[in-house]
């Protein structure tokens, strides 16, 4: 692929806060026209990365190119070509929906005529018309987030950075939001979105997983699931907590985690009978044990667990 096909390209991108490294030599490429899901536990550096890519934070090291513009050398054209929704709701609560959009339209220097048309268009696309003249403060969160998206996409930027746009939003509004994102992507926009919800991650074209400021995995949802190391079993056992403890104690178990009212246990080899035997000899009743294909959540949980264990190991070895 040629450089023009990457909408985001970073190399060794790093940000430190008083010695603490929030983003550590991140090298990342996001293809144009896709929905890129940026995953990772709290504090893993997702927002910090986005804020650097939007020109809000100065990188301590490394470089990044967004939509063809070096974020440090060409901040002005960069700003014109991106839309940003911060993790915190940040429109004017004391303006109406329409006034907020008019304001941002003016800030992006849209002519009054085309701006009015564009606002109507956004009203239709984001289904905002009904509350167009209401104060933003009075809207439910799902609506507010759509208004924020509207303000971010008003000037039709080719790149959208959305930092947890659906956090705290109810499932119906969430679905509506993602339908809108899909239609924007179909329209050619590149969307860089963070989320903690695996259903949403599943809808992305490409995922990147952050941990401790590092990108620890990258790929399509299918590829990430495929790359899941070992064999995953659904274990319905009682008592559940004791089963979890027992599974974790077994030396041949790679990972065990609670999943709803059952366990998901990962083995390096396909040997479910050994697992059943060992669990039962630990005094646990196994009602059901079957191999399943991993969900994104399994992938995510395991990636993080492996890292955490590695970090603990390194710490233990250091002592």
């Amino acid at each position: 692929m040629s450089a023009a096909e990457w909408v985001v390209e970073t190399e060794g991108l790093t940000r430190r806060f008083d010695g603490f490294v929030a983003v550590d030599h991140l090298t990342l490429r996001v293809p144009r026209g896709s929905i890129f899901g940026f995953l990772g536990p709290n504090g893993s550096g997702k927002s910090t990365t986005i804020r650097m890519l939007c020109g809000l934070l100065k990188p301590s090291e490394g470089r990044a190119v967004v939509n063809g513009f070096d974020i440090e050398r060409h901040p002005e054209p960069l700003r014109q070509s991106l839309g940003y929704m911060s993790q915190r709701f940040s429109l004017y609560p004391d303006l109406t929906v329409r006034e907020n959009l008019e304001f941002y339209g003016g800030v992006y220097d849209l002519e009054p005529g085309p701006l009015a048309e564009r606002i109507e268009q956004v009203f239709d696309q984001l289904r905002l018309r009904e509350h167009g003249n209401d104060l933003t403060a009075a809207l439910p969160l799902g609506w507010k987030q759509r208004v924020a998206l509207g303000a971010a996409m008003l000037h039709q930027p080719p790149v959208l950075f959305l930092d947890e746009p659906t956090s705290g939003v109810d499932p119906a509004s969430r679905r509506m939001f993602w339908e809108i994102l899909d239609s924007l992507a179909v329209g050619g926009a590149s969307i860089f979105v963070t989320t903690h919800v695996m259903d949403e991650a599943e809808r992305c074209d490409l995922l990147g997983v952050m941990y401790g400021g590092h990108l620890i995995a990258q790929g399509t949802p299918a590829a990430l699931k495929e790359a899941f190391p070992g064999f995953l079993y659904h274990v319905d056992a009682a008592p559940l907590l004791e089963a979890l403890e027992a599974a974790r104690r077994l030396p041949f178990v790679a990972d065990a985690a609670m999943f709803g009212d059952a366990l998901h246990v990962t083995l390096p080899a396909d040997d479910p009978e050994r697992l059943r035997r060992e669990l039962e000899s630990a005094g646990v009743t196994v009602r059901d044990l079957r191999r399943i294909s991993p969900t994104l959540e399994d992938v995510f949980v395991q990636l993080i667990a492996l890292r955490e264990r590695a970090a603990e190991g390194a710490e233990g070895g250091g002592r």
Partner: protein
Amino acid sequence: MNRRRLLSIVLKELRQLRRDKRTLRLFLIAPVIQLTFFGYAISTDLKGVKLGVVIEDPSPEARRLVDAIVATRAFDLIPTASARPDDLRPWLDTGAAQIALHIPPGFARALARGQAPVVQVLSDGSDSNTATLAFQYLSGAARVWASRERQDYLRRHPSQAVRFARVPQVNLEPRFWYNPDLKSVDFQIPGVLALILLALGASQTSLMVVRERELGTLEQLSVTPIHAWELLVGKTIPMAGAGLVMTLLITVVAYVWFHVPLRGSIPFLLIAATLYLLNTLGIGLLISVISRTQLQAQITTSFLMTPLIMLSGFLFPIANMPQWAQWLTVILPTRYYMEVVRGVFLKGQGAAELWPQAVVLAILGVLLYLGGILSFRKRVD
């Protein structure tokens, strides 16, 4: 520069202001409270100061001096029949008198010889404000008396003009010549203008900028192509407009309600107000640069307001301040605007007399305003 971006900010600010009933009320109430406060409650007019007099020289001249003092209506004469010099201290000690006057023997004789007789004034210095003011009233009365005596003497003894001329020349102009009634209302109400515009510029502006930082809208604006100066100029334009409207309102109230004389040029007053607003808005911008939260902005504002007002000459004459403080006032915009306002209201001055103050206000204003804009960082870190 981009006009549409600037106008978008101005329009947005006006829309927000229109809905911000609390701030609008504050804009209306603050001047009313200040005017009432300085118009009625706080008065540096002197009234009912208890005065004891010991006259050891029962001459008509001494009698007339006391009459002149009584005529100021600032003093209540305590009963002093057959008082002796030994009474002076006890009067002050017991509080029977706040000020005591001792006219020594030979007062009239000294006058007749062309000497300046010494009249001792004792005052209860524990209330130094009253003492200082009372002393000013006394010296004013003494000057009035001296000029009358002089004219009187010359009328009666035209041939002796040369001899009398040896009496130390007194300045016939009262010290408060531009405020002849010594009405503190006249002196303070115009000062309220300087106070209100400072509060508006420094406090309101910094709050409005910092509020955007708290709301996160500043971060949102930072990803747009808007420049920091467009944002800040756009935010301060409506403030400046509000400031000018308030200037007119306060001027009308001062003139119509408090009967403060308005002798000078109103257009010049507005020009000076605009220049002064440049200063106070600049101070507000600088405060917002260093404040993360509205609370911090408020605290910083009050820290700065105190010296800006105390050293402006609003309540205490600059000439009475210690030397270092007098030097400090040279860089205080409040001082120059106070001079302009009092000059226009009370002395009937305009650009012809007050242009130096206007020039200093312009220079300080440009420095503060530009300083505020240039030190404002659009990036969040």
